[in-house]
């Protein structure tokens, strides 16, 4: 730091930063991207290992043999569901009681802010059924949850069957030390959210539900199960939860251990795990999985009902049975044994899962990248913003000091130049206006849907999405008008100061996002940083404008959708992509209101206004 207090050396350093700014920025950006791509190669990606002592070895003998029973339960359940057209609550209650559980129901209702066209629901009311297996000679202080979300269609019957068969098997055992809750929820995630809120006696999303009659203490871990066929070829595991939260890595390790033990085929993001990490093929395949995970985590939506448990600090994951055209199939016994093993191991837990990683990326089921190794990638990207901001700051400084600087009388520590005040005042208008745009984007679509449906021939959901896009586009027109209010005293100083503020604002936001949800932070940084660094009112403005539009948050979302389907080997056509984009917008808004997902407010209140500032800079006159 002596470097900075010595005026001579400080000036030298400043000159270096100024002269080499562009190459340094490019270098830093490239380094960030390269670091991220390098994450899939062995020195950076490590083999997973079980940290929790209590779950260390797999010395559990699985005895589950209720395959026939599970299938019978599933058939009955499907028949009853078809007959009643909803969740057969009475049948479930009766069956759970007959296998010896304490059974309770919970009814809930929720009016969505606007109709959900993907799931075809608006006014939702349903009933959750859950049965508690009480551990002998324990006082119900801790519990585990096995949950099956049931949607409106007739999927997941086999999961309910397996849940009941497992409950019957578990009930006959005497080794349980934690209560086990078997939960069947209606309206998939909405039901889960209602149950969780009632269990913890909080109301975060405006759900109306009846209070729970039976509880089982602090939930230590949860497994959600989705199965729609009597046989499966593989089990896919989903870890990404609400707002990109992840369960403790040990839970995933546990699942993987039992998959290996039972010889089950397991996939992550629908991809098989590459065998060979030493050649180039393995890491490349891992990169696909990693990118898929980054995209999923960045979306911030719960990928399975486990995602909602994570808010309450309950480690949870979703297992999905996949039935593809592969030859070798597993029946429900194999899946049941894996689940039995997992539950017996979780039953051994002495403490909450806390030993292993909570922040990680997965290029494969048995490989992970820890937070210490992936953070530099986003760090390098944010460094670009920092360098640019430094350059602007110094240029502003020199401009403020006028012409005496090159004259040789060095004064690096002069107090703020008087013209600085004017620069700051000129920033107030653009900042306020873009923030107001963001607020309008956040509030108006849902608030104004009824007005829109009255005046235009659109449905509510369409109205919301179209209003969203309209406000978004209207924001682009505004900046031309914002700075006319400001006196054009020092033409360059104005946009430089604005860009400086915008850069710092963006860097802070991205930094905070990357800390909580790395994937989202990294994705946004990758797209927004280069154009943010480039934006200025001189040079090829149209090119800059096109670039800026292409890297705006909405365009990033659209691009992510294409990339997502590309990686899943199901490429989208443009029209499909647009439809998917509109659906994703509606889902994003809806998930904010129903589950408390933060992506929509984050983009509309934080990043969109910030991006508008750069747009403002670009069109500064």
């Amino acid at each position, binding site marked *: *730091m*002596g470097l*900075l*207090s010595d*005026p001579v050396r400080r000036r030298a350093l400043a000159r270096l930063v100024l002269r080499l700014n562009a190459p340094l920025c490019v270098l830093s950006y490239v380094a960030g991207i390269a670091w991220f791509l390098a994450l899939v190669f062995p020195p950076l990606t490590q083999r997973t290992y079980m940290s929790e002592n*209590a779950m260390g070895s797999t010395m559990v003998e699985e005895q589950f043999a209720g395959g026939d029973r599970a299938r019978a339960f599933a058939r009955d359940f499907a028949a009853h569901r078809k007959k009643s057209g909803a969740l057969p609550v009475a049948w479930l209650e*009766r069956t759970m*009681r*007959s296998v*010896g559980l*304490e059974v309770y129901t919970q009814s809930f209702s929720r009016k969505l802010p606007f109709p959900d066209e993907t799931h075809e629901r608006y006014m939702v009311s349903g009933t959750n059924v859950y049965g508690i297996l*009480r551990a*002998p*000679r*324990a*006082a*119900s*202080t*801790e519990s585990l949850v096995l949950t099956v979300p049931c949607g409106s269609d007739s999927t997941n019957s086999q999961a309910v069957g397996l849940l009941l068969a497992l409950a019957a098997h578990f*009930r*006959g055992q*005497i*080794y349980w*030390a*934690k209560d086990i809750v078997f939960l069947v929820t209606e309206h998939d995630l909405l039901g889960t959210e209602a149950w969780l809120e009632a269990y*913890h*006696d*909080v109301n975060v999303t405006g759900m109306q539900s009846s209070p729970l*009659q*039976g*509880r089982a*203490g*602090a939930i230590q871990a949860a497994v959600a199960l989705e199965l729609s066929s009597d046989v499966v070829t593989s089990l896919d595991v989903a870890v990404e939860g609400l707002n990109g939260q992840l369960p403790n890595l040990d839970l995933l390790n546990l699942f993987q251990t039992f998959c290996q033990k039972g010889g089950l085929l397991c996939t992550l993001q629908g991809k098989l795990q590459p065998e060979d990490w030493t050649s180039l093929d393995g890491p490349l395949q891992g990169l696909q999985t990693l990118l898929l995970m980054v995209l999923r985590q960045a979306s911030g939506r719960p990928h399975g009902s486990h995602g909602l448990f994570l*808010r*309450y*600090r309950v480690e949870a994951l979703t297992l999905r049975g996949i039935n593809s055209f592969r030859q070798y199939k597993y029946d429900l016994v194999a899946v049941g044994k894996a689940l039995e093993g997992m539950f017996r191991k979780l*039953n*051994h*837990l*002495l*403490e*909450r899962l*806390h*030993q292993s990683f909570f922040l990680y990326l997965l290029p494969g089921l048995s490989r992970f990248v820890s937070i210490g190794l992936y953070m530099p990638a986003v760090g390098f990207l944010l460094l670009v913003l920092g360098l640019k901001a430094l350059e602007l700051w110094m240029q502003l400084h020199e401009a403020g000091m006028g012409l005496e600087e090159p004259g040789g009388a*060095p004064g690096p*520590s002069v107090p703020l130049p008087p013209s600085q005040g004017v620069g700051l005042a000129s920033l107030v208008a653009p900042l306020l206006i873009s923030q107001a745009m963001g607020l309008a984007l956040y509030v108006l679509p849902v608030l104004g849907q009824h007005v829109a449906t009255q005046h235009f021939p659109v449905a509510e959901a369409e109205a919301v999405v179209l209003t969203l896009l309209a406000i978004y586009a209207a924001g682009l027109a505004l900046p031309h008008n914002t700075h006319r209010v400001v006196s054009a005293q020092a033409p360059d100083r104005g946009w430089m100061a604005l860009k400086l503020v915008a850069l710092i604002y963006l860097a802070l936001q991205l930094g905070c996002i990357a800390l909580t949800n790395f994937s989202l932070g990294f994705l946004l940084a990758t797209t927004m940083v280069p154009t943010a660094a480039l934006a200025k009112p001189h040079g090829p403005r149209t090119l800059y404008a096109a670039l800026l539009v292409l890297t705006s948050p909405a365009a990033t979302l659209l691009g992510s959708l294409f990339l997502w389907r590309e990686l899943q080997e199901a490429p989208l056509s443009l029209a499909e992509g647009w439809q998917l984009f509109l659906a994703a917008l509606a889902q994003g808004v809806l998930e904010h209101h129903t589950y408390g997902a933060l992506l929509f407010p984050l983009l509309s209140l934080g990043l969109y206004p910030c991006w508008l500032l750069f747009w403002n800079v670009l069109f500064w006159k």
Partner: protein
Amino acid sequence: MAAAMPLALLVLLLLGPGGWCLAEPPRDSLREELVITPLPSGDVAATFQFRTRWDSELQREGVSHYRLFPKALGQLISKYSLRELHLSFTQGFWRTRYWGPPFLQAPSVWINLGRSSVMSSQGSSAPLSTSSTPPTQSLPLPPSNPWVWPMTLTTTFCAMLCCRGRWSAPKTSPPGRSSCPVVPRASLISFHLLQAGLSVLLKADRLFHTSYHSQAVHIRPVCRNARCTSISWELRQTLSVVFDAFITGQGKKDWSLFRMFSRTLTEPCPLASESRVYVDITTYNQDNETLEVHPPPTTTYQDVILGTRKTYAIYDLLDTAMINNSRNLNIQLKWKRPPENEAPPVPFLHAQRYVSGYGLQKGELSTLLYNTHPYRAFPVLLLDTVPWYLRLYVHTLTITSKGKENKPSYIHYQPAQDRLQPHLLEMLIQLPANSVTKVSIQFERALLKWTEYTPDPNHGFYVSPSVLSALVPSMVAAKPVDWEESPLFNSLFPVSDGSNYFVRLYTEPLLVNLPTPDFSMPYNVICLTCTVVAVCYGSFYNLLTRTFHIEEPRTGGLAKRLANLIRRARGVPPL
């Protein structure tokens, strides 16, 4: 190993030095009794009681000769002039809603060691209360140090009792009484065994396969005669277990002694003056044909127990005909018509307790009190002891029933002192008929000093159950009974007047997570933090606070300095 792992408290029976064959009329007597009750949920509860009564003034006479009464306890009583002692060790939680009101009230339990394994774990909790008489001149003072009790009892019962902080006394209890409603973590370590009479049935591996297991010692003085001119000492050792009918019976509700205990009764205890088995054969519907007991009982006993009229079949082991016929007695109960799989009748008072909220900063303790009586309201005394590291906000205390605020008629709150004493909150609440009353209070989780965390901090910290005491309206009028004549289990419930009965319930214990540092990382964190602070903070502070002046490079040299010296001497400004 299993057979050698015997039951705890019965050691005390063995401690009698064997003087019982003397011819003099016994001044002490032992009664033993087993009550088997099919519970509403279909499970079966078995309650053993061994009651020793000694006509001796332990505190006044220098007693040295002990017969049936255990010497260790007798000495404890005379040394500290105890007035009463109640100690219970429980594993499991009495589920009042499904099992009905408990015979013997003991709080729920936590399991401490080896929560996951069955045979090797004997963690338990211990509600404990002791009372000392006001000191008189002839007696040594009762110990003022609160740690003496746990220590003494620990050595006597081979159990580990650790009570954090000071024991606190509820205001409603008489002075001189110290009690620790529940010691959250107590480990019972060693076991002893006596095999005779009813205790033949106490086979450890069966008893530890139950859903609920509670053993207790109660010592108290009782009046020797009606005018209470002199007192006797009564020691009760009880054990109650609940057998899980679903696991033992494969779904059937029939049971027999052999199926439950894997033993049958063969002989009465030679020391006991009374040795009986009571079987609850009350039928819930009026039809008497639903169940059948084998062998058919010789006598039955009818009384009002916990507000309902009950019928018991009596098997007297001292009755020679009972055992001599077949050399063993295996009582069986068969349901003629399988009882329907319907929701069991709900008791008038039950409760539920939970922690609400999420995150590690705040939370809320909520207690739900259910009064299911169709038309009568009754008051409940709610006693909460909350550890100091949950900082209660008393202004957030809300009590609502049926959507309206319910004002308690009495509140006593004693704030916690950090590391010394827990919060104590005591309220008398009127529960309206057929209602749910919610009592909730918010708290903040304190950050402990790092040495104060338990070895398993991520497991969470226990909050002891609330204690509910209530006089519940009775369906049938009960009449006061003569304790010495009636069965032992009957004297467990003090009947003050016939129209209601006393119930004490314990809610679930709670597990609360406190903000916990990552103990595996301290050195990394300390090293990193210190480095960052040392390197960055110092120089930034330096940069920010110092003003810089450009110093003229020193030119000149020796000649100039000399000139300046001369100029200063002359009083002229230097060059």
